[in-house]
């Protein structure tokens, strides 16, 4: 394995983890969306580099999908959605930023501990890619858990999906059909979630998910 090849892949995948951490740090919606766009951009770069290294042209396609849909269309759509819902000034986290970030560090450590032990035979590039991908995935889950606002939960879900794509590109030989279907299912999920957001908003006058609990008659503290 050429040193520089590994280094660049390492930088890009590590950068993705870093941007995931930045996502945990943001507590304003617009800032969160901008960081998500950055997240997708880093993913695009990472996938492009993998395509170049593995000499797999179909990965360029994946990179293009990530760039067009996740770095441009979805953030812009969410921007508009937030403006229409009138929640662009919302600041919302369940617990403070400090504990959240500590939990994030713990999850990254967990991902490293698990992945490095499980994949001892794989080649280094795939190994570190998988470890980083699992961290991104767990951080996306954490973002979803620690947010009250449905829009930022959507963003957490999208970043989780970015982690999936990173894992898929790290493992050699993922067919294009699978990737496209994953990308489209995400897009459909996004549209469905968007519709639901507006429905929730109509019904409860807010997109704070605690309102749903009240409706069910069970109160979260």
């Amino acid at each position: 394995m050429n040193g520089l090849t590994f280094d660049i892949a390492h930088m890009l995948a590590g950068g993705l983890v870093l941007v995931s951490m930045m996502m945990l740090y943001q507590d304003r919606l617009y800032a969160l969306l901008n960081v998500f766009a950055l997240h997708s951009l880093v993913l695009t770069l990472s996938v492009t580099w993998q395509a170049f290294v593995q000499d797999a042209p179909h990965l360029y396609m994946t990179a293009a999908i990530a760039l067009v849909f996740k770095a441009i269309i979805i953030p812009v759509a969410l921007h508009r959605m937030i403006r229409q819902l009138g929640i662009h000034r919302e600041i919302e986290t369940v617990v403070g930023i400090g504990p959240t970030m500590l939990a994030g560090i713990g999850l990254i450590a967990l991902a490293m501990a698990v992945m490095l032990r499980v994949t001892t035979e794989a080649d280094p590039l795939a190994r570190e890619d998988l470890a980083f991908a699992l961290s991104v995935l767990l951080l996306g889950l954490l973002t979803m858990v620690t947010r009250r606002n449905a829009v930022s939960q959507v963003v957490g879900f999208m970043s989780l999906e970015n982690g999936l794509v990173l894992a898929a590109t790290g493992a050699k030989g993922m067919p294009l059909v699978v990737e496209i279907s994953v990308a489209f299912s995400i897009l459909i999920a996004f549209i469905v979630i968007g519709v639901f957001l507006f429905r929730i908003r109509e019904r409860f006058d807010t997109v704070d998910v605690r309102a749903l609990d009240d409706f069910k008659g069970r109160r979260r503290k």
Partner: protein
Amino acid sequence: MVVISALLTQAFQMALVVLLAPLLSGFIRKLKARLLRRQGASLIQPYRDLLRLLRKDVVLAENASWLFRVAPYLIFAVTWVAAAIIPTFATGLIFSWTADLIAIIALLGSARFFLALAGMDVGTSFGGLGSSREMMIATLAEPSMLLVIFTLALVAGSTQLSTIAAFMTSPEVGLRVSLGIALIALIMVAIAENARIPVDNPATHLELTMVHEAMVLEYSGRHLAMIELAASLKLLLYISLIACIFVPWKLAALAAGPAAYAVGMFAYLAKLAVGGALLALFETATAKMRIFRVPEFLGAALMLGLLATLLLFVSRSL
């Protein structure tokens, strides 16, 4: 003969940092003013300020103890020693073998300790307020700094700055995400430590926001000159530290001769100018944050330090 030339080089380095520090502050102020479309004071204004302060009488509060009078000299001396250890234009200076990065942190920590004590000494409310805020910042900034140093030490196998700089120029470093994260964390710590804009405003006297200025409010005359010089020296120290660790190119090797030293000098000046310009740009682009958000900001630096150490496990040694 070798010892004498080594001592001379070290003396030159010590003189250099003290002479350059006000110029750097002046440069940053001038650039900030220009970025705000103001004319700004001249580059050598900080020197003039220092000279004027040195000529003035000292006004002391009646209940000021000996500590209040000693503290400025102590702070200046300690900061100067710390700045003398950092390789600015050449590695392997004679001081750098006696103290490493952890010693630099300890030196700066004791300077801060004396500053906070002096702030409380006269017993005005501003001083106490500034000291307590400074200590709040310090409790988070120092562990973050130490974590960054641990990361560097794990990568380079040493806490000795000359060794780290030599390692960083060798080809086996490569691109490492840990080092990138450590750089971000170090910059955040440097901003907080030097009382620069998102954390503290160096040019304000508004009681809601000031930290460093509140502690030195009671000082005047030559005491204030010492403290001002120490503050600009600290800024220079942090910029040279970042330059020495992360962009150690063109540093002259041990006893490399005048030509290499000249190249190192020129590179050092260029690095300082770039660092100062970036700082000025950053400061004009951001707003000061609330004091209660500072723990979050520094907590993020701490987390980044931790993350950098963690990510070392997936680097090339895999």
